[in-house]
């Protein structure tokens, strides 16, 4: 059994470390600090933490004002609110201004679970990556999250980082992983098809590839943690080398990782592709594992998608 750690836990711990290293880091939250895990920073650095209350729009524009005065600002809330509720503020005050605000959201996707559709952000990648100047990152596990948060604090510019609520498998060995924004990672070599995945679907894609190997289907798995700027070179290379593509994401099949990969493929190469993700529908209340099954986000769904795409391969 692999270790299970929530990406938001890794975020909270890393934020405190960064706070100790850099007095210029300021954290904002909108009444969800216990859930987003910014509460640890609040406790250690009360002067540099601002709880904006239930006011996400105000939070984002305030973050912009702080950043305009040279602060490195982390602003956190749930993914639905940080993207949708405050989208115009993100667009106007953060993206258009190219200010150094890191919007780190938790409870993304269907695995938010029992809270139901209102709290399950399945559209956030699509609406955030449509914004000019915005970098969009979806870490695959807690190890990668630490690297992403550290890198985000060094990198100047608006960044949207998407984390999950539940504990998810650790897939990286801490020592040998060099994270770079915009550079996808080949997690497993393979010749017959490439599975591009992000977030918790990377672990499931690795499992799927392992299962498929037993049936002599050799799949490559790529962790596309950065949805924007997308790693065009790696996508085209893998597509051409393997001749078939599957995308897997805990997000709507519209406009997310699948959309981004499709855009690259259609303009650069002719390779069949199948998307695994939430169909064009809202979620519902339930346990995360139940919802992943009901909404088609399992290892089996990925295996099926690979088999489908292979039939279309010339």
């Amino acid at each position, binding site marked *: 059994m692999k270790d299970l750690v929530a990406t938001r836990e890794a975020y909270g711990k890393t934020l405190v470390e960064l706070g100790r290293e850099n007095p210029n880091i300021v954290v904002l939250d909108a009444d969800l600090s216990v859930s987003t895990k910014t509460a640890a920073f609040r406790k250690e650095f009360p002067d540099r933490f601002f709880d904006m209350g239930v006011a996400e729009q105000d939070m984002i524009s305030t973050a912009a*004002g702080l950043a305009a005065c040279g602060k490195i600002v982390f602003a956190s809330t749930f993914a639905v609110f940080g993207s949708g509720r405050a989208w115009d503020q993100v667009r106007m005050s953060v993206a258009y201004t190219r200010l150094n605000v890191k919007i780190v959201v938790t409870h993304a996707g269907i695995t938010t679970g029992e809270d139901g559709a209102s709290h399950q952000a399945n559209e956030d990648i699509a609406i955030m990556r449509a914004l000019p100047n915005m970098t969009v990152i979806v870490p695959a596990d807690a190890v990668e999250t630490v690297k992403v948060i550290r890198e985000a604090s060094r990198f100047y510019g608006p960044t949207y980082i998407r984390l999950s609520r539940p504990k998810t498998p650790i897939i990286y060995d801490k020592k040998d992983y060099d994270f770079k924004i915009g550079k996808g990672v080949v997690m497993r070599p393979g010749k017959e098809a490439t599975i591009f995945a992000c977030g918790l679907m990377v672990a499931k894609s690795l499992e799927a590839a392992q299962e498929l190997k037993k049936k002599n289907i050799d799949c490559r798995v790529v962790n596309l943690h950065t949805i924007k700027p997308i790693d065009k070179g790696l996508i085209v290379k893998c597509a051409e080398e393997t001749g078939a593509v599957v995308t897997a994401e805990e997000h709507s099949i519209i406009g997310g990782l699948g959309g981004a990969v499709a855009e690259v493929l259609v303009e650069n190469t002719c390779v069949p592709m199948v998307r695994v993700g939430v169909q064009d529908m809202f979620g519902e209340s339930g346990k995360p594992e139940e919802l992943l099954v009901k909404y088609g986000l399992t290892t089996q769904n990925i295996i099926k998608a690979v088999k489908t795409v292979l039939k279309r391969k010339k």
Partner: protein
Amino acid sequence: MISKEKIKKLEGVARRLRQHIIQMTCAAASGHPGGSLSAADIITLLYFHKMRHNPKDPGWGERDRFVMSKGHAAPILYAALAEAGYFPVKYLKTLRKIGSSLQGHVDMLALPGIEMSTGSLGQGLSAANGMALAGRLDKRSYRVYCLTGDGECHEGQIWEAAMTAAHHRLDNLTAIVDHNKYQIDGRIEEIKSLEPFAEKWKAFGWQVFSCDGHDMKAIDQALKRAEKVKGRPSVIIAETVKGKGVAFMEAKPLEYHGRAPTPEEEKKALAEICQVKEFEV
């Protein structure tokens, strides 16, 4: 106390800024003259008397910050920045033209001296709060000023920001409402009343002042009083007239909210502002 000579000088500056508003919107054949003219005296007093700023060093850390939350009043801010020496006055005629730094609504990346990009109403006051919080964290003594429209106060975010400023006791912040009583669709009182307006701000924990927004001495006094307030943010409700300084615009505030003067109207407006019979463009 501001001297009589200084007031006279400021009134002269305000007249020049009004000329620029008319000329630049006419040249652009678009833009918002009405709400720029109503804010002209407030902006003049801030940029030519009150605020610490340095056109030669727009990034100076100790400078006072001004956030133009009503981003469509860009022409008056551009006029002030040009007259103050941030860029050549002749550049004003590029307003709204392709490739110009003088965007239809203010853009901080395009033009030094602009502290925050705005245009989607209601966001500037939150940003101003962020600047005031940063000033406190950095132990800097600058003040933050934020000009909002009165129609803009329909935006819920203004009141979110009002709560934030009061909660954090931001006494290094002064908001000024350009209370010209009109929004695009009509009189605010008829579209959606703000009243009781001053009481709303009070109830949100702000120290409220009001003044004639076209009287330099009154604006200066209100700003001075606001500066002395401790432990809470202050707001000045500046009573203004939309289109102020141009009689035919004052008479039709709705028409000139978002319509530029024609070349014919430009001549007429400039003659009035410059107090001459005929104005040669």
